[in-house]
């Protein structure tokens, strides 16, 4: 357990378990509930232990960091997805947005030729990053406006954008891939591969980007008015509106944020590969949803947190990489991932039905009390 990431997550997660347990049961302690509440965390531990026993290569700092840089991509998508799901929506377009963002970044790195002036512009990397994020935000804005203003169901609106964004990415490249995104020193646009390749204190930049985005999102949700608005919109939009919450604005903004997260993920991925293909990120939206669900968020909105979502992303990433390391066929990987998702949803429904005030949870606790009495 030399890995710093896992250590941090372990600490914070037990923190919440304690807090929740106190809120629900006075000072009582219930092992079953602890396991249920912290399921994503325990699943991660179980995955690490299992694969460490099966393969000598799994349990090493080097491998954890490689796996973590894979997780970073899904994690970034999942954080954005999580914000959307908290409001009771869904964003199916993030995989395509990731692909489009990579292509836009690749396009800009190749240099933009202005026909009329006969000059080619080579924007520096920071401009590329900003413009790419703006593209992601634009996709999100279209989603948000369709959903909040024109009342298109989130599933349908973002499904439409899934196709549109992917189509635009294919059109821009004619189906081909932009290679050699390294830039040229004489053009002053080097450094794109920094995102994907460099390390700070041995930690890949992608992982640090994820940590920063997650921290920002966590602060946003827990410490700002906007965060409270997100939770209340997902919990009961009518009540939120009558309490003065700008429900429409909140809805538009979460999709914009999700688009930006997808664009950042696209930048990290194309930087890791130093190439940008128009089909990158296909079906990643489903992985992101899975991470959010494994992390304990309710698809009906209002419940969930960033910590859980990150754990969910790590569970999926560490599981599928582990299966690769021990040489399980990729078809089996698909089966395992699916089983984990179903199990997670199953546990979610158990947890949320137990939370309902009158029925299930209370008889259980009082039954144990009764037998003691």
């Amino acid at each position, binding site marked *: 357990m030399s890995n710093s990431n896992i250590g941090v997550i372990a600490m914070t997660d037990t923190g919440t378990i304690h807090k929740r347990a106190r809120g629900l049961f006075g000072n009582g302690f219930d092992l079953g509930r602890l396991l249920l509440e912290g399921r994503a965390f325990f699943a991660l531990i179980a995955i690490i232990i299992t694969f460490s026993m099966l393969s000598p290569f799994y349990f090493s700092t080097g491998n954890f960091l490689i796996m973590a840089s894979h997780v970073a991509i899904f994690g970034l998508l999942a954080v954005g997805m999580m914000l959307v799901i908290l409001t009771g929506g869904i964003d199916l377009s993030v995989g395509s947005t990731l692909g489009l963002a990579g292509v836009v970044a690749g396009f800009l790195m190749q240099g933009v030729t202005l026909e009329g002036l006969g000059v080619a512009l080579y924007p520096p990397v920071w401009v590329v990053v900003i413009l790419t994020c703006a593209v992601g935000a634009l996709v999100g804005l279209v989603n948000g406006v369709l959903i909040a203003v024109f009342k298109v169901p989130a599933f349908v609106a973002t499904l439409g954008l899934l196709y549109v964004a992917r189509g635009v990415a294919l059109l821009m490249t004619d189906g081909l891939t932009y290679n050699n995104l390294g830039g040229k020193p004489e053009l002053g646009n080097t450094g794109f591969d920094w995102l994907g390749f460099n390390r700070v204190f041995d930690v890949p930049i992608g992982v640090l980007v994820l940590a920063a985005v997650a921290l920002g999102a966590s602060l946003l949700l827990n410490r*700002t008015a906007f965060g*409270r608005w997100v939770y209340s919109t997902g919990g009961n939009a009518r009540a939120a509106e*009558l309490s*003065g919450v*700008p429900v429409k604005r909140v809805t538009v903004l979460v999709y914009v944020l999700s688009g930006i997260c997808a664009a950042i993920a696209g930048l990290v991925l194309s930087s890791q590969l130093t190439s940008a293909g128009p089909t990158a990120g296909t079906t990643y939206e489903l992985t992101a949803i899975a991470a959010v669900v494994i992390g304990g968020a309710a698809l009906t909105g*209002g419940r969930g947190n960033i910590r859980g979502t990150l754990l969910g992303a790590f569970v999926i990433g560490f599981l599928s990489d582990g299966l690769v390391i021990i040489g399980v066929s990729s078809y089996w990987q698909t089966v395992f991932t699916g089983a984990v998702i179903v199990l997670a949803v199953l546990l979610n429904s158990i947890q949320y039905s137990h939370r309902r005030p009158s029925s299930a949870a209370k008889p259980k606790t*009082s039954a144990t009390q009764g037998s003691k009495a």
Partner: protein
Amino acid sequence: MSGAGTTGEAVLQARDVAKSYGNVQALKGVNFDVHRGQVTTLFGENGAGKSTLMKILSGVIRPTSGEILLDGRPVAFHSTTEARDLGISIIHQELSLAPNLSVRDNIFMGREITTATGVDYAEEERQTRALMEELEEDIDPLTPVEDLRLGQQQVVEIARALSVNARILIMDEPTSALSASEVEVLFKVIRDLKARGVSIVYISHHLEEALQITDHAVVLRDGTMTARAPRSEIDLEWIVRNMVGENFDLGSPPEGHAIGDVALKIDGLSVPDASATGRSAVDGLSLELRAGEIVCLYGLMGAGRTEMLECIAGRLPKSGGRVLLEGRELGRASIAERIARGLVLVPEDRQRDGLVQTMSVGENLSLASIGAFTRGLFTSRKRERDLVDTSIRNVTIKTDGGQAAIGSLSGGNQQKVVIGKMLATNPRVVMLDEPSRGIDIGAKAEVFRLLAEGAQRGLAVIYSTSEVGECLSIAHRIIVMRRGKISAEFGPDATKEQIMAASGEAVVA
């Protein structure tokens, strides 16, 4: 078969039944008899333990201690199905019918009569028709339930319970959504059921109504049974006394403070009717409300009270007229802007419009005033806690604290959370739509006390009600609405009959 045995003997008995949720004792050793072929009514405030007792009797939950006797023999059921098999059915406050399915399909939902070739619809239809004849309700078995009036839907629920040969029928607030004529139909059905030997357990907040139908009264308070007696020995005052444990009064208009300037002025306001195009739910209505004044808005369902209040709050668009808050026109201001300027609405349906069930008591209380504890970008936890604690104290919410789940509160306390949330925004004008709906007398009195105190501090208060008794309490003025217009205005010395006549309600002698 259900008529076997003598009318009046105890068919279902609860002996020293206790139930605790964690540290909270919901029931403390209650004894309770259900008499054959008679109606036993449970009276009690919200949180007194009525629902818990009903859930135990119907098998939803199990008691912590004590026993249930059916026909003198102890029984223990672990689910509603087991209770139903023993002849005990419950009809919940919220009907559990599928509105898209027909009456027939609803009655046989989950118990379809099947033959080798599938569902025997003809037989189901025949039995449904027989049930409806028995209940003397002219409902076609193939009508979709959504096309029925609420009272008829209730009859369908009863028919469903009877179709499984229920000997004991538990009815939780069956009249809360019914019109006066529908209540009459329901009571006739109940009398027929009694004649057939069916025993009925009845719960209602509507005390006078329940007194018309009941044979026995049992009163619960704080999880203990405070009194029980047959109908002949009791009256309304006896029930109220045992329910609240003291003399009960909804208050009188607060006096001794200055009535200030006009706080809210409504000038020729019209609101379109959402269900019928071209019609107006509120029709050119004008009204003035002064600081420190309490106005009661009385009217029947559909008189336009809710539409008017929601339009003033910014929820519904208006089709004409003006709304002025302290002399300044509101125009197209958003709900948030109106709240910021001191105009708030406590909505009618607290579950649907008032509370966020996924958030805690504290988060609900602070939802409308997040700005007050935000400094720069971030919220201050300490300031929020202070605000929540102050609110809990001010509106006297009974809770473990701000972090408690909203679902752990009783109806009355949930309503206080909604009111406390809006009062925390420091409003100038408070509008409350049916603030006493579904809460018990004690909580009602506390809500009215809060409003009276607010008025004394200079708050302008307008509340709507459909219970005439509530008009004649704290209101300085009573405005009666009828078909979108003001039909009469009274002072606090009006009589119930005057108010009801002005609303268009037939006065029952």
